[in-house]
């Protein structure tokens, strides 16, 4: 900041003090002005920006302490330094209690005065930078919103508000595409840890050694290809939140390591011996039946109970059809803005199709469908034909018939296995040919 942009206001009833200090600060290049009493000082606050005010404690009429109180009612931004003729502990304490930055006695040591001003300005700059960073973080952290007004989603919001400010471990459960990561971020953003990072580890689709290195980091030369020391996600989450997505997919050895680090908040990097400490909160998410996994012996019971402290269950979209329209409009606005298109709404037929579809891929599938529709849409509104074929072709089963349940379950298993026909057939305990027949019968299509 240029010194000419820094304003100092001297408030003292003695002309000689006003003149001396004004001259002293002017030689330093500051923008300086003076006021002979409290009332004049308050007038000079209007329409002017002052960084620092030097206020004499003893003035006729409004004294320095009263002026300080009046300034504090108007603004907290100005640093007020109290000047007094005699060092008095009582008045110093009173001034500091009222929010004065410091307290100096006349005559003032010039070196002390210069350092005090320098220190106050540095602190102001730090506060300003801190505020800017907090604003940036808040702006970024409110980027993803949880949309919906159904009782189910309101219940979820209430649970988030309850658990967010605590340090409790949270397990988020829900089908694929229901927004588990969004909920994890909402919990993190509502917590005192929000100014530290939320670090996501996708535990699915990683080999045992890769996940171990991802979580705990590695030392140089720990394994072939480890050319440099690398910090793991647990270390990076220090002060913040560790979000373990697809927790049900980790192997037994990593489960044991994870349990240990969650309990002790200490670990060693792969190939290292130094004990690293990290202070983090754990949020995990799964779409698996972990209770069954525990019974089957593929998920450690102690880890399950360590993670399953507070559960947030996300309803599938088909269980909250009342939110479909709101979500669709939210995504429409998001993608028209991103693609700078002028699509305004959905035709009634298109909206009817959206509301009538089962959405096995949940909110993620709806978002993809709207994004695609915005791309292909030529007119001012999204037509039914702009929607993906399966959305229009396969209306949502009413959910009560045995056939509907079969339809939904097969779709779920196929999604879960990534449309691996052999594995799906094995889970459903039917042969592959029968599965193909069912897929054809129910008009199931793999999501893009």
């Amino acid at each position, binding site marked *: 900041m240029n*010194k000419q942009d820094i304003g100092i206001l001297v408030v003292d009833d003695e002309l*000689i*003090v006003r*003149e*001396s*200090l004004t*001259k*002293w600060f*002017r*030689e*330093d*290049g500051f923008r300086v002005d003076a006021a002979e009493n409290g009332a004049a000082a308050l007038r000079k606050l209007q329409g002017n920006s002052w960084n620092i005010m030097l206020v004499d404690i003893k003035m006729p009429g409004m004294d320095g302490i009263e002026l300080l109180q009046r300034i504090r009612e108007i603004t907290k931004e100005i640093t007020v330094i109290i000047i007094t003729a005699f060092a008095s502990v009582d008045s110093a304490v009173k001034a500091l209690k009222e929010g004065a930055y410091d307290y100096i006695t*006349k*005559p*003032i*040591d*010039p*070196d002390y*005065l*210069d350092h005090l001003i320098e220190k106050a300005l540095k602190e102001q700059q730090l506060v300003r930078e801190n505020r800017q960073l907090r604003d940036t973080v808040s702006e970024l952290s409110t980027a993803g919103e949880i949309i919906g007004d159904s009782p189910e989603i309101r219940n979820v919001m209430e649970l988030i508000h309850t658990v967010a400010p605590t340090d409790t471990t949270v397990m988020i459960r829900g089908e694929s595409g229901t927004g588990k990561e969004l909920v994890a971020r909402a919990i993190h953003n509502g917590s005192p840890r929000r100014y530290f990072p939320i670090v996501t580890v996708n535990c699915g689709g990683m080999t045992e050694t890769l996940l171990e290195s991802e979580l705990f980091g590695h030392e140089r030369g720990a394994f072939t290809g480890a050319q440099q020391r690398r910090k793991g996600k647990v270390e990076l989450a220090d002060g913040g939140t560790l979000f373990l997505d697809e927790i049900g997919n980790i192997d037994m050895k990593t489960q044991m390591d994870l349990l240990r680090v969650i309990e002790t908040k200490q670990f060693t990097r792969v190939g290292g011996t130094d004990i690293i400490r990290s202070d983090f909160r754990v949020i995990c998410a799964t779409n698996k039946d972990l209770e069954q996994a525990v019974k089957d012996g593929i998920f450690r019971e102690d880890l399950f109970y360590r993670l399953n402290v507070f559960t947030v269950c996300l309803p599938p979209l088909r269980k909250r059809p009342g939110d479909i329209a709101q979500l669709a409009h939210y995504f429409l606005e998001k993608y028209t803005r991103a693609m700078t298109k002028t699509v305004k709404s959905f035709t009634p037929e298109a909206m009817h199709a959206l509301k009538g579809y089962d959405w096995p891929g949940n909110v993620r599938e709806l978002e993809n469908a709207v994004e695609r529709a915005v791309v292909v849409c030529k007119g001012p509104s999204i037509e039914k034909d702009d929607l993906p074929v399966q959305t229009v072709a396969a209306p949502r089963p009413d959910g009560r018939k045995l056939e509907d349940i079969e339809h939904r379950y097969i779709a779920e298993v196929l999604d879960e296995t990534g449309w691996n026909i052999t594995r799906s057939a094995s889970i459903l305990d039917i042969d592959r040919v029968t599965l193909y027949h069912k897929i054809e019968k129910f008009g199931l299509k793999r999501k893009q």
Partner: protein
Amino acid sequence: MNSIHLLPLGDVDRGIVESLQQPLSRVFRMPVLLKEANLPLDAFFDEARGQYNSTAMIQFLRNEQSALARLHPGREGSHERILMVFGSDLYIPVLTYVFGEAELGGRVAIVSYYRLRNELYGLPLQRPLLLKRICKEALHELGHTYGLTHCLLQDCVMHASTYVEDIDLKGDTFCPDCIAAVQNPRA
């Protein structure tokens, strides 16, 4: 005619005052003349503080110059500057001490070598160091009369100094921006 008038005050060490003539003349590119002052020094002395009020001294001299200018109208356009050189301790009323003072963008300045002497800090006398310090302070205060404020560059003589160590740390010349303002005041 542009010139700098050096005014030795009281029982000041004349050698110190004369040592300033050459460097000031070189930097400001004008004659530096030794003049005699007739200031009622006792009037500026504060017995309780044991110091002289530099603000009042500058004020007195400025008033005297204005009176002279009124008596001799031809002097009005003169760009001469007056630097008082003193050997006693100076203060401005709100501060405990100053090394010197100047009218910002004016004509009158004052420097004192009282606090620039090593002996004051229990160190052995070092005359060359004292001459170097007083020269820096003279340049600094005269710089203020050209409207220069404190420079952020450590090497520039206009860098602020409130301790004698600060004076030793800063340079003994003006930085390019400050010298431009001194040698081409209109620029």
